[in-house]
């Protein structure tokens, strides 16, 4: 309805290949960025910033990571949380043992460590596919969880295994309020999301999708399968690793293996299924959906139940709803919210015509 594409023709490939080739979309993006960078920090309270928006952003990042591996490269992973844990503990240990490094560098190196671990666990992907590979990533999940729980060095021999994250100082500025943590997360997520979008529309992204869609012809066209799959594992795990570090530093404030258990992996997997497999936008939509739905449910329950519903009933209800939604989306819209968004946009572009 608001689209006026006629006359927005492209005279160069640069313009044609822009992420947002339509002017109205660019305007909408600018508005969105203005809202999340400027309006939200002013308007939102501590609860919203610290307990909803920050984890939402971090999980979006993890979902982007998983989407790169599963959505783009077609390699199903159930070890997302494990790779997040690597990032979290790497950031903690880097900070602890090499205090000279700036925190941002810690975060990025945390991602690199996660990438290396991810690539090790991606090695079997050359020989095994599908469920077998999923099981291999499950091995990574359990192994990593176990290592951080049982090898004391990683937790600096803390007796409880739960450590407070050290305070964050970035270029002399202490990041400790909810707003500051939110903004730090937002910047990291925005930059990395852009990088992810860029990769998936470049050579490496095409090679991932080629391997996903038809590995035989990918190889015949000159794409080395192992290197491509490993690159997907590595880059995906990098994103998960950075997300893990942010989860620890900006959201939880504590470093503990229990934050990265199998159910976290499933949570992120659900995000990409509901949000949209093979879509960067979908990663955000899915994270938003999965984070916000329980809050919405709780509020509804509080309204109608007047607090009579118990916590475990709520948990069960959540399980049922998420499980049901996963099945629903897989059956009805396997490409998730991102596809619904795309369809809506398409309708809007054709408005008032049906086609």
């Amino acid at each position, binding site marked *: 309805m608001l689209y006026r594409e006629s006359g927005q023709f492209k005279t160069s490939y640069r313009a044609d*290949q822009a992420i947002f080739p339509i002017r109205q979309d660019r305007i909408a993006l600018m508005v969105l960025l203005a809202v999340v960078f400027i309006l939200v920090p002013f308007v939102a309270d501590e609860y919203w910033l610290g307990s909803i928006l920050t984890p939402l952003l971090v999980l979006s990042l993890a979902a982007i990571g998983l989407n790169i591996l599963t959505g783009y490269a077609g390699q199903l992973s159930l070890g997302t949380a494990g790779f997040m844990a690597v990032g979290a503990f790497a950031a903690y240990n880097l900070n602890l043992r090499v205090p000279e490094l700036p925190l941002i560098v810690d975060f990025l190196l945390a991602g690199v460590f996660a990438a290396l671990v991810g690539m090790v666990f991606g090695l079997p992907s050359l020989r095994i596919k599908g469920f077998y590979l999923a099981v291999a990533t499950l091995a990574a999940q359990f192994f990593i969880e176990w290592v951080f729980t049982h090898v004391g060095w990683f937790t600096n021999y803390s007796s409880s295994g739960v450590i407070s994250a050290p305070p964050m100082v970035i270029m002399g500025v202490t990041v400790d309020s909810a707003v500051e943590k939110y903004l730090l997360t937002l910047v990291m997520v925005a930059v990395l999301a852009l990088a992810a979008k*860029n990769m998936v529309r*470049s*050579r490496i992204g095409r090679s991932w999708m*080629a391997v996903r*869609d*038809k590995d035989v012809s*990918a*190889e015949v*066209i000159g794409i080395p399968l192992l290197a491509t799959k490993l690159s997907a594992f590595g880059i995906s795990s990098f994103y998960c690793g950075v997300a893990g570090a942010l989860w620890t530093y900006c959201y939880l404030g504590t470093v503990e293996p229990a934050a990265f258990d199998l159910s976290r992996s499933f949570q992120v997997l659900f995000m990409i299924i509901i949000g949209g497999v093979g879509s960067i936008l979908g990663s955000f939509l899915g994270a938003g959906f999965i984070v916000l739905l329980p809050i919405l449910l709780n509020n509804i329950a509080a309204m109608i139940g007047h607090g009579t519903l118990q916590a475990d009933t709520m948990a069960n209800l959540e399980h049922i709803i998420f499980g049901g939604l996963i099945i629903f989306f897989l059956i009805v819209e396997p490409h998730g919210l991102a596809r619904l968004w795309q369809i809506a946009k398409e309708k809007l572009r054709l408005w008032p015509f049906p086609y």
Partner: protein
Amino acid sequence: MSVSEKQIGDVILRCDNISLSFGGVRALTNISIDVREHEILAIIGPNGAGKSSMLNVINGVYHPQEGSVTYQGQTRRAMKPHETARHGIARTFQNIALFKGMSVLDNIMTGRYTKMKRNFLWQALYVGPNLKEEIEHREVCERVIDFLQIENIRKTPVGRLPYGLQKRVELGRALAAEPQLLLLDEPMAGMNVEEKEDMCRFILDVNDEFGTTIVLIEHDMGVVMDISDRVAVLDYGKKIADGSPAEVRANQDVIDAYLGVAH
């Protein structure tokens, strides 16, 4: 209209005594085939004669137990398909093997994979050298799109295209690699007459405009006789004839192989 004679050059691919078997089942027995530069060589034969296996040996999908493949003067043992791709061999498949989740343009862009150099960090940044590279290769792909006359479906996901167009896109993906040797596995299978004519035209044009050497498998004898310079006939994994279309047509073994098993 005076059309200059086609120049057929030296042998660029030599398969020597290739034998291939799968768990005891012989697919190819002692096959030797030469392919000369600029020619169109058709491999024909009844179903199960080993035609596709032969292509798979040439581009490294299968590794023969015996024999050797000499390409551009280099004799090789086991080479991976992605390595042969780097050496200028491209192919299409009998059953369309496009990347279903990608657009026509992206499919064709993957054909440029081996020619692109920027690493993933540049790609993450996108602008600058990576964009320059993307655009350079886009230009090449646009020429392929123009050549195959698929401009109007450039951004359509390939899964939505009719069969004939998908075949054309697959050819486009192979062409984007600017191969010296192009292997086509039944490029016209399942097409109607008009689509077949178009495809013939494209194959001849590729051969003509770019000088690409083409090895193709085809069932439609009319097509084979029309467009190929040379025909090799396989039957039960053995080569039973090799020569010009006219020679092959007159060959008694070929007649027996085709007519002897008349249905």
